[in-house]
């Protein structure tokens, strides 16, 4: 094909980093939609503006979400992208695939869509980038029959996502992938049929490194942690020292709670003071391992800045067990949180925003969690506070 001259985009095929333009061109060789995508994108680069209209509501039968409607504002000039919807496939937890599975996905996509993907979208979906309204039902039949369901969109539960966790990480305190998959399956109805005040995101990280950025961009952030003493292998400590690590400055001095000491031979940790920040363990993985009682901290409310500024999630439950048999407790907690939010939020009000309006107390009471110093960085500053009738009974 190559219907278009793309002098500007061609500039972005130069240079060492893999080029998205090259990818679009690859698809455009055989795919008219991708070719028009290329043309319209070149025009955007020339004029410094996008040419997409607000998405209309499109989808597959019985579902309210999973597809982002997208139409070109220049359908005559670029007919191939007149419709250019994205189709969000719910990724397998941890983003694991086999080549066979991926190739199958590609084959179907080449048949009905642009041949372009996002591996993956920021929420976590395997995003198929650009198709027509008519193709949606066939795509759904092809994919769902092979076990690939749609992800979330709109005012619904969004596709949960997680770090690689126990599959390939020595620091996983919880089965992040197992929890993520469990949640995804548990909330299928909520994922596919928008009935919430706004979007609701869940992300699960195995430890405080938080490799899926759960604390920053999920209404519900589940982060693995532990109780008990950090296990120290002093022989390995010695190897790090011998290997040239400056244990004093790199580890001891950087411990935020000042609870470590090193005498040139052994590391000592005053574990009651440890905040389980993961620094020492991450930098000395062979020598230090977390304590043995594993669980998670549950935090709530993070989101992007619209409307009143971005939020980072706040601690709701400092420690909760998360072994396989505890998964139901987690989903129950999640349901209670969602119920409180659903009952109280205005349209387009995220969980974090609602908490800012109502305060933490009603949520804590709704989910039956006691107030604890772990939930705050520091107590309130001003002498203005509420008393409930129940407080007077004490």
């Amino acid at each position, binding site marked *: 094909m190559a219907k278009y001259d793309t002098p500007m985009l061609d500039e972005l095929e130069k240079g060492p980093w893999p080029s998205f333009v090259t990818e679009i061109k*690859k698809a455009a060789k055989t795919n008219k939609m991708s070719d028009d995508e290329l043309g319209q994108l070149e025009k955007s680069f020339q004029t410094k503006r996008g040419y997409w209209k607000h998405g209309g509501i499109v989808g597959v039968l019985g579902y309210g979400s999973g597809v982002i409607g997208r139409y070109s504002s220049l359908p005559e000039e670029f007919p191939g992208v007149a419709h250019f919807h994205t189709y969000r496939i719910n990724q397998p937890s941890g983003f694991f695939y086999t080549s066979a599975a991926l190739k199958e996905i590609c084959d179907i996509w080449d048949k009905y869509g642009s041949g372009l993907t996002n591996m993956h979208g920021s929420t976590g979906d395997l995003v198929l980038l650009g198709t027509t309204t008519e193709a949606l039902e066939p795509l759904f039949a092809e994919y769902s029959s092979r*076990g690939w369901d749609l992800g979330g969109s709109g005012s619904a539960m969004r596709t949960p996502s997680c770090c690689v966790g126990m599959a390939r990480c020595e620091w996983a305190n919880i089965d992040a992938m197992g929890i993520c998959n469990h949640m995804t399956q548990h909330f*299928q109805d909520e994922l596919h049929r928008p009935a919430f005040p706004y979007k609701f995101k869940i992300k699960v990280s195995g430890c405080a490194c938080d490799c899926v950025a759960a604390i920053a961009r999920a209404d519900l952030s589940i982060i693995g942690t532990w109780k008990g003493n950090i296990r120290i292998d002093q022989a390995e400590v010695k190897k790090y020292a011998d290997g040239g690590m400056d244990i004093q400055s*790199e580890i001891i001095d950087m411990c935020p709670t000042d609870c470590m000491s090193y005498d040139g031979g052994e590391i000592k940790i005053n574990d009651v003071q440890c905040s389980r920040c993961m*620094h020492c363990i991450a930098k000395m993985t062979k020598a230090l391992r977390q304590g043995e009682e594993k669980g998670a901290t549950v935090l709530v409310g993070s989101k992007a800045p619209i*409307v009143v500024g971005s939020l980072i999630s706040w601690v709701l439950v400092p420690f909760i067990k998360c072994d396989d048999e505890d998964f139901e407790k987690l989903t129950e907690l999640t349901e209670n949180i969602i119920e409180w939010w659903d009952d109280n939020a205005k349209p*387009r009000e995220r969980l974090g925003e609602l908490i800012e309006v109502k305060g933490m107390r009603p949520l804590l009471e709704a989910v039956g969690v006691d107030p604890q110093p772990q939930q705050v960085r520091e107590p309130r500053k001003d002498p203005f506070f509420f008393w409930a009738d129940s407080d007077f009974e004490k």
Partner: protein
Amino acid sequence: MSLPERQTDVGPPHFEKFLPPVIKNNYGKWKYHEVLSPGTMVHVAESGDELYTVRVASPRILATETIREVCDLAEKYCDGHLRFTTRNNIELLISDKAKLDPCVAELKEKGYMIGGIGPRISNVIHTQGWVHCHSACTDASGIVKAMMDELHEYFTTKELPNKVRLAVACCVNMCGAVHVSDIAVVAVHRKVPTIDDENVGKMCEIPTTVGSCPTSAIRPNPKTKSVSINEEKCMYCGNCFTVCPPIDIHRPEDDGVAIVVGGKIGSLRTSPKFSKLAIPFFYNEPPRWPKVVDAIKNIIDVYAANAKKHERVGEWIERVGWEDFFKLTGIEFTFQHIDDFTFMRDTLRTSAAFKY
């Protein structure tokens, strides 16, 4: 051609279907890992089993052709097993140590870029941009490509004091993790939206539109059956445009991007941090946004020269103070840097001690 029978609410396939045997056997029983090179690492299980990972850069927008090519390599070296990372790199999962070097060699030969592990720059979290989003005020993939062409050595070889997480978001909806990134680009408007009164009346719910404005700049306008915007209060967030398309916020000649710095997600050492405004504005300069790229390069250079080992960008800045950040980078401090939004009270300086 008849279609297979559709199924509903099956959810995604269980991940177990896709795990290589070495992972199934050692699930939850990994003991430690070693970084072998900037793009390869080995995880060793309690059992002694080993899993080798090769991390490959991806532009995230992948054509099916490329996916198939990577799948072929996975078949050759990994029994078909691969995964993607949370930052959109590709990881080939090798169980047989002997296949590691040949795999790396073939990847390199085919022009793939290997790296991103350890205290480096990994892939850039980014969003749709002009490629697919109506809200885009810049192009995300374009900026990422221009940035990473300049910074690729920090992916493939060079070390930094710690990981530096980059992100690009094409509007203030910030679908990328801009608000918690070491260094990030976010597209911003600078002019009050225009209102197509006739269509507002037809297409929009007035209360929703009024309610969408963070600064209460929007009032119903009974005369026009539309809304009006108080120019003094509008800070061009575009949320009204999101809920009501006839309110147009795009102004190509005045739009551009801001650079924010010092965010952080992990709880290691210091608490997660929001990114803060470093440079309020650059004009969009496609295709390569040279000033944006230079500015980011400069910040990284200054960070590399001044931070202590293991210090993230935000940790370094907080240690030396923002006064020093502006001095060392040579970035001009403007009215825009001073918060007048929700964190104002907490970000204005309430101390007589500071550096000149």
